[in-house]
């Protein structure tokens, strides 16, 4: 434990010295650092901060050092996260390369694949996107129909993917494809790594109800993918796919949780501003009860995440509780935005026009965006199915 305390002290000192002040302010969505071959910088400190963190491998803290990672233990990584949180440091780099692909690369990749892809992810040189869902394969992901046929030293790929987030900005895509159409549905799937910048790969942005277009429908037509870009074994891609989904769910559960703490203005103050206050209380009792109910559930969930972390830190065997994180975090996040809107009244219902503050418009858009939380990465219904089956042991 002494060494952890030392690590904490050193980490804090390093962060204080190296994290530029502007990178210690809350990050608006449009200032996220994604890296990639064609990165966009709003200001130079973004790149400075990413490069400094990448040099320490802290853009992927638990990845082994030989691939450019931080080589940290889970405890150390938690301390790093806590210290970054304490100083308000922004994430130096974000993306599906880090949160989803890297963990399965480390677990299933060949040495050559790790050497090729991990350093590029860690340094922010390559931006990845995810080719999982298809128009006919949402919750039933394993029902996917995209095809890859092995022809000598390459696969010939024909795929139609949807919800490939930021595919129009990504350099590469990790993709589930069917390599054996005669096998049972979970047994003929393979996991391929595919270059986006080539003829035949065509991402088409999808406009969302929030007005944003971060997702694409991606068409891959008659594209040759080198055989060595197969991750894991042929036709065994479903194992990797499931593993990656676990990482995705953790990441979504985490984001939801963090978001529900973040607040430009605490919702209770928004409520006082718009609905008035009496003796320091929000004047409208229904609104006050709505906010208190939400905040109590959010607090109880935060404590649950903390309990899971504390148990892990104490070396206790992991209990089943994390099975509900994705479900609970995303349902809470939807409620959070509904509560904020209820507090703002019609001032929270603006789409456009000078009379709405940027924060108000942003909240409205984020409210719409939050509706996807309980759909993406496994719907709430799928999560409940999983809890019922795996945790409670209820029969099919």
């Amino acid at each position, binding site marked *: 434990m002494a060494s952890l305390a030392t690590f904490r002290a050193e980490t804090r000192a390093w962060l204080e010295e190296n994290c530029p002040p502007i990178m210690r302010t809350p990050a608006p969505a449009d200032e996220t650092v994604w890296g990639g071959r064609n990165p966009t910088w709003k200001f130079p400190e973004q790149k400075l901060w990413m490069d400094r963190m990448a040099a320490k491998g802290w853009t992927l803290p638990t990845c082994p050092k030989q691939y450019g990672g931080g080589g940290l233990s889970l405890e150390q990584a938690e301390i790093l996260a806590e210290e970054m949180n304490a100083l308000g440091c922004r994430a130096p780099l974000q993306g599906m390369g880090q949160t989803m692909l890297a963990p399965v690369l480390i677990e299933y990749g060949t040495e050559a694949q790790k050497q090729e892809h991990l350093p590029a992810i860690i340094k922010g040189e390559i931006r990845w996107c995810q080719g999982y*869902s298809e128009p*006919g*394969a*949402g*919750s*039933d992901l394993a*029902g996917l129909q995209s095809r890859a046929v092995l022809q000598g030293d390459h696969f010939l790929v024909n795929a139609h993917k*949807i*919800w490939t987030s930021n595919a129009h900005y990504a350099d590469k895509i990790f993709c589930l494809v069917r390599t054996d159409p005669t096998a049972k549905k979970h047994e003929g799937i393979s996991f391929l790594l595919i270059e986006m910048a080539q003829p035949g790969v065509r991402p088409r942005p*999808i*406009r*969302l*109800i929030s*007005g944003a277009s971060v997702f694409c429908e991606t068409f891959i037509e008659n594209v040759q993918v080198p055989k060595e870009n197969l991750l894991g074994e042929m036709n065994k891609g479903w194992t990797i796919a499931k593993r990656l989904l676990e990482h995705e769910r953790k990441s979504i559960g985490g984001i939801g949780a963090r978001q529900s703490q973040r607040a430009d203005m605490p919702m209770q103050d928004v409520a006082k501003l*718009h*609905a008035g206050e009496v003796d320091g209380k929000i004047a*409208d*009792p*229904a*609104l006050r009860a*709505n906010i208190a109910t939400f905040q109590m559930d959010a607090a109880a969930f935060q404590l649950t995440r903390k309990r899971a972390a504390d148990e892990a830190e104490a070396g206790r065997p992991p209990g089943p509780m994390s099975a509900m994180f994705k479900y609970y975090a995303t349902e809470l996040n939807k409620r959070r935005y509904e509560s904020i*809107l*209820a507090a*703002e*009244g*019609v*001032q*929270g*219902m*603006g*789409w*456009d*026009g*000078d*009379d*709405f503050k940027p924060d108000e418009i942003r909240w*409205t858009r984020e409210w*719409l965006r939050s*509706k*996807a939380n*309980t*759909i*993406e990465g496994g*719907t*709430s*219904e799928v999560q*409940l199915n999983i809890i019922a089956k795996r945790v409670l042991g209820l029969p099919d």
Partner: protein
Amino acid sequence: MALVLSEDAQLVRDQAMDFFREKSPILALRKLRDSNDADGFSRALWKEMADLGWTGFVVSEESGGSGFGMVGLGQVLEAAGRTLAPSPLISTALIGASALDIAGTTTQKSAYLSGLLAGDVITALATDEGSHHAPGNVATTARAEAGGYVLDGRKSFVLDGHVADMLIVSAKTDAGITLFLVPAKTAGVSIQRRIMVDSRNAAIVTLAGVKLGANAVLGSVGGGAALLERILDRARVGLAAEMLGSSCEAFDRTVQYLKDRKQFGVAIGSFQALKHRAAQMFAEIEVTRSAVLAALVALDEGAEDAASLVSLAKAKANTTFNLTSSEGIQMHGGIGMTDEHEIGFFLKRSRVAELTFGSTGFHQDRYASLLGY
């Protein structure tokens, strides 16, 4: 009171359903939105609605309307809600027409009503000043001066304000809240359009030293609060009828999707958890329909408990539309998150409508107060 549509009302209902499906599907709203249409609705279509007599449903025959009543207009609004059709039905055919019919002098009627009935005059109610419905909170002042009044204040959420020819404004006089008819072109009136998330409009109306004659008073001086409640109760249930239509449509589309969408080799509507949630929505829609119809009938009959029935109708419409639109999005899954799909329009409309003319909490509080607790 009988909770059943007359044959006439049924005919109006059928006609209105056909009208909106044919002439104002959701695609029409999308086009208005994407073209940044200055009005936010089709004036040609509005003229057609006026020609069908809808502007005169709540206006007595003596005043040039048909006196067909709230039940009739409720059917039209429900049909409009089915396709989320934007129009001045609520601001003008319901609110403006009601205000003039209930309290307008002969002069006021002759100034505005024939134009309104013909679809040429659009009106808007300027009452709320904050972001929550609170008709009793009026900071706008009307100072008596030279036999008339001078109005100063700011109104925050004026439906169709940007296209209104005449505003109905609540303001405080020494005698209490009073309503005024204010032509939009009056000096000192400035109107700023706001585009809402549902692609409809509300405006900020600023009144700076607006000079009006004594004949601008609607109803009696100091009698504005009670009159406003009468007008608002019509607006509330009318909006509830529209929301009922929207709820039904969101629900029908969702049930259809549950039948069409296949996952795991079966229609997702065969999953019991979704079935139960769909059945619960069905039940909520049925009770909401009853509450809306009862409130419409009560207003037409001048029933004593009309106000509490109106609050019941609006509160149920709020929760039911919130439910059906939220479940609509969730059950449609990813496709519902795309702007291309129409189910998202219902979600956006639901929350704006919910906050208009009183949230669920507002009407719950009012209902309890009216029932003596």
